[in-house]
């Protein structure tokens, strides 16, 4: 539908004042469609429901905007919301551009003056060559006064735009940020006309009408301009600056709602650097490493080999409470989970260490049998790297799964 150009999002988490009142899930406004003309009853009904939902969302946004001073995260219903600012230039599909321009013309007829300056210098090719018709006089509706190319653009069909583009523009998924942005753009356009931006809009429209600007200013966040000015058929582009967006995303499966629904445990499928650093902090705070039996022994090797992995496993076994200010407080330590994940993750370390400790005497024995005098350094390197190879093989070829299963069986813990 649209082509995202250099989108810049600056995220900022915002408070939900009362999470229980989040009845209108923000994602349901995805049902709103902008580009396709409403034809069937079902579409009209959907449009009505969607606009109602949209106003719910706006009311909700206004409600939590009052609580903006704090910073917290709402996890009550498994959705996380945050306020972002959208910046970027978006290419508009022909259908969407048509619809947007039609609405703009209906709202502010002065837009037409700007549109006339977009007239192509050379006649467009590709479409059917029409005889130049004399411009009809001013009619009862503003769009009757259009130049033919613009009328063709807005109300006709261009070659090649068929059912496919309709389908394409009708596909809006929750993952489609552009679709969301457009829904939000429409909402902001409504609000802008109704609200205090109306005056500013009037001034901008006047400026456009005077010919000083060739950009159609939709509201304080959005400009519409022709990226193909004077060269042929218009290529509309929407420029968005600092448009506040509420992004609602479902919280992935790591969140659990045991208890009143505020506890979660972190998950370490592919931990990010941030998480690993945070794990280091937790491990240092709770001093778990010092109480581990193997660290008190003579072998410091165990500490170096296994401690970082153990820190990560400990981190993923801790359940946290989120307090009102969004801070984590340790609630409990899931011992079974720690043992199972340890068995899984440490088994690779054990295998690697064993392989490297085995490899060096083996290499020494074979070398001695061959009558060799090999310096130590290559043997050390071979030992290290054989250990790493064994670790990779173990972790990726079922060894880790096997260790996890054995630990589960030993603990009597289910899945």
């Amino acid at each position: 539908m649209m082509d995202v150009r250099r989108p810049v999002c600056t995220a900022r988490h915002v408070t939900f004042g009362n999470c229980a009142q989040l009845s209108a899930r923000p994602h349901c406004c995805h049902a709103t469609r902008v580009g396709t003309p409403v034809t069937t009853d079902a579409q009209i009904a959907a449009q009505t429901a969607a606009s109602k939902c949209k106003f719910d969302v706006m009311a909700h946004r206004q409600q939590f905007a009052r609580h903006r001073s704090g910073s917290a995260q709402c996890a009550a219903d498994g959705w996380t919301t945050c306020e972002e600012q959208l910046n970027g230039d978006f290419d508009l599909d022909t259908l969407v551009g048509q619809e947007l321009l039609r609405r703009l013309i209906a709202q502010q007829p002065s837009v037409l003056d700007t549109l006339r300056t977009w007239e192509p210098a050379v006649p467009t090719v590709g479409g059917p060559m029409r005889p130049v018709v004399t411009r009809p006089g001013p009619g009862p509706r503003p769009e009757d006064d259009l130049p033919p190319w613009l009328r063709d653009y807005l109300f006709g069909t261009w070659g090649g735009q068929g059912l496919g583009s309709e389908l394409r523009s009708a596909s809006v998924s929750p993952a489609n940020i552009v679709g969301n942005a457009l829904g939000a753009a429409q909402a902001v356009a409504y609000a802008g006309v109704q609200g205090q931006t109306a005056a500013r809009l009037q001034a901008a429209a006047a400026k456009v009408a005077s010919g000083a600007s060739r950009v159609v200013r939709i509201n304080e966040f959005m400009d519409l301009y022709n990226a193909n000015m004077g060269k042929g058929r218009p290529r509309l582009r929407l420029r968005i600056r600092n448009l506040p967006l509420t992004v609602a995303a479902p919280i992935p499966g790591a969140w659990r709602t045991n208890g009143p629904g505020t506890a979660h445990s972190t998950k370490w499928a592919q931990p990010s650097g941030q998480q690993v650093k945070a794990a280091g902090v937790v491990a240092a705070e709770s001093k778990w490493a010092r109480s581990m039996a193997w660290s008190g022994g003579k072998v410091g090797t165990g500490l170096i080999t296994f401690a970082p992995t153990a820190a990560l496993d400990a981190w993923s076994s801790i359940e946290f409470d989120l307090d009102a200010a969004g801070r984590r407080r340790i609630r409990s330590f899931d011992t079974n989970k720690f043992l199972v994940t340890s068995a899984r993750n440490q088994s690779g370390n054990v295998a690697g260490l064993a392989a490297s400790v085995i490899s060096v005497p083996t290499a020494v024995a074979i070398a001695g049998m061959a009558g060799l005098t090999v310096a130590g350094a290559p043997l050390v390197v071979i030992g290290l790297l054989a250990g790493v190879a064994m670790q990779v093989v173990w972790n990726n070829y079922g060894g880790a799964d096997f260790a996890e299963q054995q630990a589960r069986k030993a603990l009597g813990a289910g899945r």
Partner: protein
Amino acid sequence: MRPPDDLSSLKHLPLVLGAAGAFVVPAMWAFVLDKPALMLMAPITCLVFLGSGLHLKYRARYSPREALWAAVLALLFFGSLLVVSTTALAWRAHRPDLQPLALGLAALMFVSGMATGFVAERRRLRVIDPATGLPAPLAPLLDLKGHRILPLPSPPPPRAATVATLTAVALNLPLLLQLGGWEANDVVWLAMPALAATVTTMLASGFGPALARALALMDVEHRVGRPLVTSRLEELQAMRRGFWLSRWLTRANDTP
């Protein structure tokens, strides 16, 4: 041809070699062979390495013929390391179609490494020492009167604790990579080329020349008409007498 400087390290050698054959060598083939093939391979390599370990512990005289057997063991062990170093890269690149190429590359590295060292050592062995009539590099190695092979002085082998400590650091490399935004398995991009380079260097600088020397020593044996054994044989036999099962496993003519 060269018993370990610390002879007591022979005590646990069958265990270590057996574990290497059962555990390390098959695992190095995990990227190319499927599980049944590995399960078939593990007992075989375990028996081969365990037998070698038992032989070294109880019966070895460190003769040139045993050095040839060491070349076979080197093929199994260091060849497996070369195989894992190339096939792991093909696996990480998600290109299973490149596995034959990786195997070919490993074979090429093994053969070229051995051949380079072998050819260079053969060239050096062509020089004859005028005093003894032996190849010059072998002259300090041989005690022809006693039919003994003298051990060359060598730097001490690395201590197991050193290796373990360094490995402890190396095994956390995947975690470090994750900290840097990589994937844990991306460690193979760093480790495997280094492994291949080290093993190839060792083959070219150590095992290839050792093979050439062993062949030259067998030639000397043929000329002298008596087998050459290590000069530390008596020490070795005295040591072996204390080993468990030594009465049945050592050679009959060696036990007093």
